[in-house]
């Protein structure tokens, strides 16, 4: 396995459902500690790191004698489930943490709680289905998680109320692509780690590995307030829906066509100057890129751009098929091109980039 895939594997297999990101945080801290000047964990659990820039504080009129502050963001949390009840026969009742798709749940393997107790979402065998039942999608409230407990007592000891459960998916290589859970947004975390590992940039780099994106962009909001950057980039693993369809229509993004740049989604409108910086860089250096289909989804940039007096922001993402499911799939070429595009674009960014006509 190539080295970068090893990092992605470690991040993907770490468990960190929104509000319980400790295991992911440990992997992140271990990976970046040697490469940054300052590192801290803030009140909500975000990892905030600082890497000083090499530029002399600029003399340009916009600078106010300060070095440019650029924020890079990737969220550590993943979607999952939380235990909300125990049946008399030892099954767990659960609710969604983040955007869970009930179509995917029956028969899915889980890891429950800090001890990673194996569990499976109960499913009625096909032999017993009544007529028409197979055409319906069971809803989460009607499903149970089986951890092998025989009684309510045993179940509530093993997995008390409030226990988190995450998908239990091993990372794999499938030809030139890799598959695993939580690529939204461990792919972004891995890109961010790669950027921090490299040489210093001219500007002061502030990076945030954030918590609770999937439940309302909460970590990013306070991280951006603390950092007060001049501009921000959210790094993501985004929807690729280039799967077979019966009509010529726009895919949100497609695998293998390079990093996906967001112009507008449901949470924010990207800053056009940053979009142009990215596309100009990609064209000149012949790095493939694509636009994410506008109007879909939301990312931490929805919170970043609102911090303090406002922060020009953009989102750059690695296209991932089947996100918000137990297993996603991404192209390592796309991953590598995302790192390259970000590195090259960032190396060109100056106060001038943010000048308005």
């Amino acid at each position: 396995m190539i080295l970068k895939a090893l990092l992605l594997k470690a991040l993907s297999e770490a468990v960190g459902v929104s509000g319980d990101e400790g295991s992911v945080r440990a992997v992140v801290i271990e990976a970046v500690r040697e490469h940054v000047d300052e590192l801290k964990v803030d009140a909500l659990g975000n990892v905030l790191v600082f890497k000083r820039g090499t530029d002399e504080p600029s003399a340009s009129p916009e600078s106010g004698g300060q070095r440019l502050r650029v924020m890079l963001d990737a969220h550590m949390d993943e979607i999952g489930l939380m235990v909300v009840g125990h049946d008399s026969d030892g099954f767990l009742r659960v609710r969604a943490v983040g955007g869970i798709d009930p179509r995917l749940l029956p028969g899915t393997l889980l890891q429950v709680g800090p001890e990673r107790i194996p569990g499976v979402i109960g499913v009625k065998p096909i032999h017993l289905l009544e007529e028409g039942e197979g055409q319906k999608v069971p809803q989460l409230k009607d499903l149970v998680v089986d951890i092998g407990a025989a009684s309510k007592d045993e179940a509530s000891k093993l997995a008390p109320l409030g226990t988190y459960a995450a998908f239990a998916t091993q990372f794999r290589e499938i030809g030139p692509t890799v598959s695993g859970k939580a690529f939204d947004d461990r792919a972004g975390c891995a890109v961010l780690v790669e950027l921090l590992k490299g040489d210093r940039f001219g500007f002061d780099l502030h990076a945030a590995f954030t918590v609770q994106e999937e439940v309302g962009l909460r970590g990013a909001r306070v991280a951006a307030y603390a950092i007060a950057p001049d501009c921000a980039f959210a790094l993501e693993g985004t929807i690729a829906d280039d799967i077979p369809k019966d009509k010529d229509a726009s895919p949100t993004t497609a695998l293998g066509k390079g990093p996906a740049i967001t112009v507008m989604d449901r949470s924010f409108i990207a800053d056009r100057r940053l979009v142009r910086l990215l596309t100009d860089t990609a064209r000149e250096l012949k790095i493939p890129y694509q636009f994410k289909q506008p109007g879909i989804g939301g990312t931490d940039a929805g919170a970043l751009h609102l911090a303090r007096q406002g922060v020009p922001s953009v989102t750059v993402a690695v296209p991932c098929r089947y996100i918000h499911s137990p297993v996603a799939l991404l192209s390592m070429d796309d991953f590598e091109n995302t790192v390259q595009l970000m590195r090259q674009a960032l190396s060109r960014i100056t106060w001038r980039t943010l000048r308005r006509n």
Partner: protein
Amino acid sequence: MRELIRKLVGTHGPSGVEDQIRAVIRAEVEPLADELRVDPLGSLVVRKRGGGGGQRILLDAHMDEIGVMVTYVDEKGFVRFTRIGGVNPLNCVGGRVAFADGTVGVIAVEEKREDTKKVPRFEQLYIDVGATSGDDCPVGVGDAAVFVRPFLAQGTRLISKAMDDRIGCAVLVETLRRLEHTPHDVYFVFSVQEETTLSGARTSTYGIEPDLAIAVDVTGTGDTPECRPMAVKLGQGPAVKVQDRGMIAHPLVRDLLVRRAKEANVPYQLEVLEYGTTNAAAMQLVRAGVPSGCLSIPCRYIHTPSEMVDEEDVEHSVQLLLEVLQAA
């Protein structure tokens, strides 16, 4: 003022791409400003210094308008799109949209639909810019366009696209023009990205730290056939907001507007809006909180390409704001 309104409503400025409208407004206000800046998200902030002893007052009107954005260009050069802000497919078919470079497209609807009696979905609409292939299509994914409809004045009614909220921008510009003396430090904010996320007003307010904020925006009316009940009528004066879906107006701001209107004999109405909101909803939550209210210009057919306001209401809005600013 009619020429100013005509100029403002005719300028391109969908949310997120406000460069053209900002330049037009800037040219109007720069000679009148004590200070002028463009803040990080692109809002235009104009300061008029007070004579002293007053408060720091923020007046907001958003300069962005609703529109559409290209999501896909097919191999024949037809353009698929999504909406920017609250666009209804009902108002799209047969309409025209203009891109920043002047390219105009016609919105059409797929003919083979399952139920042609239903309002089409956005996925069933497309824009035809006259291209013959994807290669010669002059617009691409991410390009934004606004509706096209000429400005019309008929009697006292003014009709155009983008009255929401260029009419508020016009009221602010005119208020600034006529403002002779005020004890207050007044910030006129022409904000970005209201129609999508109320982002510009929120971030500008953070930078200004006002004692009091008033959004100047359009509101709906209850005076058209079979409309939802609402006490606001076109031509009966500007509306002082009591509440809408996003906020309850601060009683001090509401009462201040009402008191000044009564003292100066400016007609006004009280407004309770049961759908929609304005920048005041975002401004009131900034920092430790900002007493905020809203002066609304009654407007029929909001978010269609033919939004209708009454010229008298516009004039009275300017008069009421001047009363508020010039009193101690």
